């Protein structure tokens, strides 16, 4: 490699020699950079960047001509060998020089070129690409893509160390947002919306690609928020430039005024779309806590949020207030989302026969929302606020004000909303959004705690059977993959409450089908727990009267599957004679069949701990309902447990518990 002094001398000469030949100048800089980045020492790179910065500063007109190419070249100096990602940013001379170079480019470069380049780089910026360009190994790639995501895991502290790719993607994002923001203000145009749209599209693309993998999404949220709040239309600064006057010369004054008016409307629409779409995309992989927050309020207990969530609530609050300042009528928009969600499912037949027809209708219900979203993509041409962003804002309203945005929500609408928001994720990850799911659950809670049970039951009974089944299945399935233990428990309580409200036949069918085919053993355990509750607890008498909110809350407390033991209700509740699900011969046979099938599975060396826990739950279920159950069936089950688990010794604690429960069941059977 040439000496650094010689390279710098070449660089200085290139700026003089190729003053009128920007392509040659750009090529020269590229060659020098590549040479340095393959062989050079860190100190040489620093010297080179310093020289480049000096040349850009002293030749702004030349720099303007190569501003389309410089950003890519300068970013090449971000390498793991030259930058210690564990140090503070200020310690790295290279980072500081790169930022200074970008600052010069954004101030003296051709603004349109710079904007296009900035948007192009930002759109293609991803952890995956960054790993490739950093020359990371396959393992590093894996770490980035599948490592524990801070935002997803419900922890109170940061555990994960940032990967180099995450570090460089984040810092590049900062630099590019600055570049785009600055150059956007410098573009002389009477059509600013065109450039604003370009900028926001690239930012959204960046968020779409990276929201699930980035270490801390709050950084991106702050940048988006800052961009939206700080955006000033160029008309206020530069519309009276020579270039624009020249453009204007060809346009009549009246026409110009109309263009200006239309441009204002367009920019406002772009910003509304961007802040709502950006918000929901950022929060795709982050749990929302509004359901937990409301649940704790119902129980009059404190909702303890981790530092991460406290900070997130603050950022969300900013987005909520930003939406207000952008004149987004959150309530009107939310009502529109509810109406749209309900319209998706209006064609579902009320009653369908069992068997094949029923299954087909269920499949259709599963796919309706997804198909609707696809149709929307192809048909919708205007710029609208993002419906899922609006769903999030509806919960931020509650977190911000303590009041529900739409307390009158009907349970039917809450169910439509849940299905609409959640089911598309079964077909495409693009539609997976943990935050939106959380808010949909929050609205389910609101809907079932704001009306008396009798009203809720009536409303729910009007829904098509297939739709109800799909809804309950979806809620259970999604909960089985929930990371947060607290949210999982709260949602189990929600599911129990909802199972009490749906017609008995549908509730039993849902629970028995879950026992038969839920792919998660803990999902089966949950279904079993609910079934036990519904078969053993008598219906709350308040069904017959207008129960107040406090009584409804009491009911929720009764059903709460607490993480830390059982909760004692404050008041004694008057109950009916009839349980939510009656025990019949047919139902006993069905449950028995499921239980036997699961017991047979544990006679296998590949058995999982969760499979054994499921058998424990079955034993507890039968022990709890022993006095109402068929003796022969119980004997049969107990015998099968004994046979299948006799040789099992992988997990002695569980085995001991299993044997002890089975013995207890045996004793109860003998007493019958």
């Amino acid at each position, binding site marked *: 490699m040439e000496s650094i002094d010689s390279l710098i001398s070449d660089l200085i000469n290139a700026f003089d020699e190729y003053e009128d030949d920007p392509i040659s100048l750009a090529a020269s800089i590229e060659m020098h950079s590549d040479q340095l980045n393959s062989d050079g020492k860190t100190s040489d790179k620093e010297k080179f960047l310093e020289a480049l910065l000096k040349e850009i500063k002293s030749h702004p007109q030349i720099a303007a001509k190569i501003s389309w190419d410089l950003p890519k070249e300068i970013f090449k100096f971000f390498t793991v060998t030259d930058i210690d990602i564990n140090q503070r940013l200020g310690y790295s001379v290279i980072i500081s020089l790169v930022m200074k170079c970008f600052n010069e480019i954004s101030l003296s470069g051709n603004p349109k070129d710079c904007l296009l380049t900035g948007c192009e780089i930002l759109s293609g910026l991803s952890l995956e690409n960054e790993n490739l360009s950093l020359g990371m190994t396959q393992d590093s790639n894996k770490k980035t893509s599948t490592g524990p995501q801070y935002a997803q895991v419900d922890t109170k502290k940061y555990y994960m160390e940032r990967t180099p790719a995450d570090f460089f993607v984040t810092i590049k994002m900062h630099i590019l947002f600055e570049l785009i923001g600055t150059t956007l203000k410098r573009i002389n145009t009477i059509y600013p919306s065109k450039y604003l749209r370009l900028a926001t599209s690239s930012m959204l693309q960046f968020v779409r690609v990276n929201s699930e993998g980035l270490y801390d999404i709050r950084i991106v949220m702050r940048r988006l928020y800052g961009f939206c*709040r700080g955006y*000033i*239309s160029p008309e*206020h600064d530069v519309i009276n430039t020579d270039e624009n006057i020249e453009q204007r010369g060809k346009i009549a004054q009246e026409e110009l005024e109309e263009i200006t008016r239309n441009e*204002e*409307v367009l*920019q*406002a629409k772009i*910003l509304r779309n961007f802040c709502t779409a950006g918000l929901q995309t950022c929060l795709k992989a982050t749990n929302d806590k509004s359901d937990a927050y409301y649940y704790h309020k119902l129980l009059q207990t404190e909702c303890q949020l981790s530092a991460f969530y406290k900070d997130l609530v*603050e950022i969300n*609050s*900013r987005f909520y*207030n930003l939406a*207000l*300042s*952008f*004149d987004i009528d959150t*309530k009107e928009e939310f009502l529109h989302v509810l109406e749209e969600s309900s319209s998706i499912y209006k064609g579902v037949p009320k009653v369908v026969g069992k068997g094949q027809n029923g299954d087909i209708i269920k499949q259709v219900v599963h796919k309706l929302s997804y198909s609707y979203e696809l149709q929307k993509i192809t048909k919708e041409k205007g710029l609208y606020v993002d419906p899922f962003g609006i769903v999030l804002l509806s919960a931020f309203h509650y977190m911000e*004000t303590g009041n529900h945005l739409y307390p009158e929500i009907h349970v039917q609408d809450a169910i439509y909303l849940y299905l609409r928001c959640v089911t598309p994720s079964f077909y495409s990850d693009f539609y997976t959004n943990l935050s939106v799911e959380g808010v949909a659950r929050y609205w389910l809670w609101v809907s079932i705690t704001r009306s008396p049970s009798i009203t809720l039951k009536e409303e729910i009974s009007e829904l098509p059977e297939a739709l109800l089944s799909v809804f309950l299945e979806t809620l259970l399935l999604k909960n089985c993959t929930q990371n947060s233990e607290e949210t999982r428990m709260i949602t189990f309580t929600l599911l129990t409450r909802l199972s009490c409200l749906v017609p008995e036949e549908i509730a039993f069918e849902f629970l028995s089908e879950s026992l038969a085919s839920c792919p998660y053993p803990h999902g089966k355990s949950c279904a079993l727990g609910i079934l036990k509750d519904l078969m053993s607890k008598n219906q709350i008498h308040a069904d017959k009267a207008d129960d107040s909110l406090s009584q409804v809350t009491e009911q929720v407390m009764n059903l709460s599957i607490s993480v830390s033991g059982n909760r004692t209700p404050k008041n004694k509740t008057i109950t009916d004679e009839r349980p939510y699900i009656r025990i019949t011969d047919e139902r006993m046979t069905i449950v028995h069949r499921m239980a036997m099938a699961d017991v047979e599975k544990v006679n296998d060396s590949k058995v999982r701990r969760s499979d054994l826990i499921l058998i424990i739950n079955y034993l507890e279920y039968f022990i709890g309902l022993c006095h109402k159950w068929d003796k022969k069936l119980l004997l049969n089950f107990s015998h099968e447990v004994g046979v299948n688990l006799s040789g099992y010794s992988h997990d002695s604690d569980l085995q001991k518990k299993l044997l002890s429960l089975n013995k207890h069941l045996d004793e109860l059977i003998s007493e019958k």
Partner: protein
Amino acid sequence: MSEFYKLTPKDKKGEDYPFTQLEGKVVLIVNVASKCGFTPQYKELESLYKKYQDKGLVILGFPCNQFGHQEPGTDEQIGQFCQLNYGVTFPILKKINVNGNDMDPVYEFLKSKKSGLLGFKGIKWNFEKFLIDRKGEVVQRYASLTKPSSIEQDIERLLNK
């Protein structure tokens, strides 16, 4: 009579502050916050107030906590903060919301009369300003970035009308 004079917000003690008392005055209304980067604007606002108070200028500060939760204190604490740190003598009224369903009628009126950048009616941040002439007409709206001192000419023009 202008609709502006029919408004009656509350002062920091929760008592009515009828705008009828502003008839014939030039009024500058500002949504203020104590913990904001723009909070030092209090100093320039106070200077303007002192300079033009006798000629008929009234400045009204409406504390608001909607932007970054930068006005968390009580009305009493806010009043004390303004007096102690910036020697504010112009009226600081009761804390209100300036956007959303619970916005104060004063801001509903002001925003309906004058939009901000890109036609947005919503208030974007702390220290946005509305200038009202002697007839109760909202004549100008200024962004947070606009320093009070740079409004001086507009105020003078209205005072001299």
